[in-house]
Every structure is written in C-alpha cells, then in structure tokens.
C-alpha cells in the first residue's frame, strides 16, 4: 500500500498536540520540508508555534522575497532574522566541506536559541527528512555529509527537538504538503540545501564568491525552467550551478582571460537517495553557458556540465 498522506497528517497532528505542552519555534526556509513541517505544527499547536526565517546571506537570488510570499500563501506568520554577518564571519577562511556544514548548523542553532528566548520556546520543530539523518551517519552508518539540521547540530543545545517527518522522503513530503493545503508552486519547488550557496562555493566562502554562484544559479534556474515550459525537456528534480575554485585560461575580445569555472548540474530523482544526471538538450546548455560567461565575464570564462550519477557522486558537490 502506498503512502497515505491524510492518515499521516492526522496521526502526527494528534501526536504533536499530546506531546508539546509549551511554546515551540520552527525555522522555515520557504522550502518544501520546513514549510510542510510548519503548516503541520501550526495545525497542531496554533499560537504556540513561532516561525522564524533566517537570512543566512547564502540564499538564492530573490529567495527572501519568494519565501515571504510563500509564507503568506500558507497562512504562516514568520519573523525574518538577518544573520548574514554571523554566517559569513563564521565561515571565514574555512574550506573543508564538513567544517562548513558544522559551522552553519551551529550558527543556525545560535540564532534559534536567541529567538527561542524571546518567545520562551521549549521545543525546536524541524522539517528533517530521512536523507538528512541517513547521510549524516551515526554508529555503523558512514557520514556522507552532515546535514545542518542533524549532524550539524551542536552537542549542547537548550531546545527539545521535534521532527515529525523523519521517516519521509521528498516525494512523500510533497504529498503531505499538498494534503495540508500548501499551494502547488510551493510544494513542487526543487530542493535547496539548508547550508545554501555556501556549499555551492567550492573552497572559501566569501561575499564575492557567493555573489558569483548566486547569479550563475539564477541563470541556470531560469533557463531550465524556460526550457521545461517550452516543452524541450522535463523539469529536472534539482538543477543548479556550482562555483569551482579552478581557474583556466580564456580569450575575450582578443584579450587573455583567466577566470573561474562554473559547473552546471541537473539531476532526475524521486527520493534523492539515487539520482541520474538529466538529459539536457544541447541548445539549453549552450544558452546557460553563453549567459553565464557573458554576464560574468570578469569572473567566469568556462562552464562545464556534470555528467555523474548518485552514486558515486552526491547531488550537491559538498
């Protein structure tokens, strides 16, 4: 028997009502998982639930605005907290992907703790789903990457965790969100990692590098979405750009160039635990390459397309 979203929602709402006897805080990124968790928790906890949106400075172009609009559509009252300087300064000089993820997890918790004090919250609700704790590893299971909401959490934390969707995968979460009345443009959004663009910048995260990958991601997203709309391809499960630390030689208007490389990635998946790279028509790739190298000519002079599946790669690069 396939997953029954209505039964899941009814059961989890009941459990939450019984379990949580005080105020709770939830961090919502505007993505599918945390939005579903927030709407579910609000159904159960009503005014006891306090929603926070953290601007990490690692968000995509227009993300804060999109998220705000989505919260309104879902009937969520969300406090916006700008913590971008905290995240950027925390990541200064750090190049190791696991260190980045741990620092980001810790920054998130510091913000939550601060916000929890304000509303006297005892619980932290998270939209954690199965791949988050699976890939974070524990005991016999190898750590593939520490998801900010699991392996990235500091050991000392003054909040009790509630994770109603721990056993679900993305396809099931979308059904739950739909069941909860979340609009389809919100529940069908592509996944975006909690650590944000910080893990799409290989090497050190600086404001300048985040700006480069933000623009490249925006171009890639626009072109994939336009191509899907025009019927040239199916919209991939996830599609984005990564900034590589490798520089290479180019020629721009008869002048030597020496710039960064952008990797474009698009994958098809159902639950994110396995994925194949998408078959993207050449004209779509061509347009993405052209736009990225022209719009960012001072920074980027080469674009490559990632043709690796998961396994052996993961979907994101870090």
């Amino acid at each position: 028997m396939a997953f029954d979203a209505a039964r899941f929602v009814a059961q989890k709402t009941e459990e939450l009502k019984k379990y949580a006897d005080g105020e709770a805080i939830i961090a919502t990124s505007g993505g599918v998982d945390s939005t579903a968790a927030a709407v579910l928790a609000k159904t159960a906890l009503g005014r006891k639930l306090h929603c926070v949106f953290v601007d990490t400075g690692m968000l995509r172009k227009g993300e804060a605005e999109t998220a705000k609009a989505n919260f309104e559509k879902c009937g969520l009252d969300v406090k916006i907290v700008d913590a971008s300087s905290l995240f950027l300064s925390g990541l200064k000089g750090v190049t190791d992907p696991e260190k980045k993820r741990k620092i980001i997890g810790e920054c998130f918790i510091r913000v939550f703790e601060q916000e929890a004090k304000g509303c006297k919250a005892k619980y932290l609700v998270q939209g954690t789903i199965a791949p988050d704790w699976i890939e974070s590893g524990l005991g016999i299971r190898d750590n593939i990457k520490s998801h900010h909401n699991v392996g990235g959490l500091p050991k000392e934390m003054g909040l009790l965790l509630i994770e109603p969707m721990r056993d679900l995968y993305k396809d099931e979460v979308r059904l739950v969100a739909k069941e909860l009345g979340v609009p389809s443009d919100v529940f069908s959004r592509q996944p975006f990692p909690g650590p944000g663009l910080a893990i799409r910048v290989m090497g050190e995260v600086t404001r300048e590098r985040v700006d480069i990958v933000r623009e490249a991601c925006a171009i890639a997203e626009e072109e994939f979405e336009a191509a899907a709309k025009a019927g040239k391809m199916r919209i991939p499960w996830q599609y984005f750009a990564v900034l590589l630390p490798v520089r290479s030689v180019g020629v721009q208007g008869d002048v030597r160039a020496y710039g960064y490389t952008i990797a474009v990635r698009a994958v098809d998946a159902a639950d994110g635990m396995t994925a194949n790279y998408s078959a993207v028509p050449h004209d779509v790739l061509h347009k993405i390459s052209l736009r990225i190298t022209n719009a960012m000519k001072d920074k980027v002079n080469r674009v490559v397309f990632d043709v690796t599946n998961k396994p052996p790669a993961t979907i994101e690069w870090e």
Partner: protein
Amino acid sequence: MRVPVIDLGSQWTHRIWRTLRDLECDSEIMPPDVPFAKIADADGFVLSGGAVRIGGGEDSKIAKCHGIVEKFGKPIMGVCAGQQFLALHFGGKVAPAKMPEYGNVEITVAEPDDLFAGIPRKFAAWASHNDEIKEAPGFELLASSPACRWHAFKHEKKPIYGTLFHPEVVHTQHGEEIYANFVRVCRR
C-alpha cells in the same frame, strides 16, 4: 507478515524498510547486534548493505550476525554487504571487486527461481559496491552483470537469497517486485 531489516549501515537501509512497509509487512530496522530473541519469531529478514568492507576483513564488526543467520532457519535476503556476509558465513570468499560498480548495471538473470519470478531476464539495476563475492560454495547463481558474476544467488538447500545490486532504490527496475517475491517466500 513480520520482516525486519538488520542494518549493516547502508545509505539505503531505510529504503528497504519503506519498500517492505509499502508491501504491507510489519517491518522495523534493527542493529546488527540485536539479541536473537527479538528476531526469532519473524517470518524472514533482510540483511542490508553497509559501509563494512566484508572483502577487507571488517566482518568482525558484525560478527553477531553469524549467530543469527545460523539459528534463524527461515528466509533471509542479503543485499550488497549483506549478500557478501552470507557468502562468507557459508564458507565463501569475498574480496575487493576487480571492477567496482557505482550506479547503473545491466543484470542478466540466469535462473528466475523465486526471486526473479515474473521479471524480465534483462533489466537495469543500481549498485554501489567496493567488494564482490569470489566463491560461494553451496549457492546457486541467479544473476550477473557484465563486470560481476555473483549479482544474485540462492542457497541450494535453505531459503537464503542475496543480491549485490540494490532492489530498494527507485532507479532499479522491478525492485519492489523482487522484494514482493521474497515476501512471498516468507509467506510459504
């Protein structure tokens, strides 16, 4: 139908649990050192894959599973490291694969038997293994890929099965049917 999963640490252990749950089995994930009493009355169980290098002498980490396999007496299905562990348990040899396979592999079924009943003789499956079975005395070969011989086997006398590829991931064709076939064996 109670079919637990013994977790050797695979990225896809939870997918096995979800597949069994979708097949309406009563399933739960158990650690490799689970006391035998907790699994003794199950109708069958699945031994998941995992990061343990069976071909690198790391099977001592899951040594308790030998006792469980020895005493259980009902259907067992091993996947990836779980399959390799079963081969080792019955006196076989496991070593680093000549050609490890990550992602898509083409499976050719040599013997449909119970596990591949109703499934095409060739299908696409996904694997993710560093080691492989070199010898499996007492086992019958059920399926292979071009790079690897022992992709699926069955014990000649006991209801014990194994696949090197992962039927629980969505990229494997007919994966759920393979588990449904195993559950059918458990029901006998």
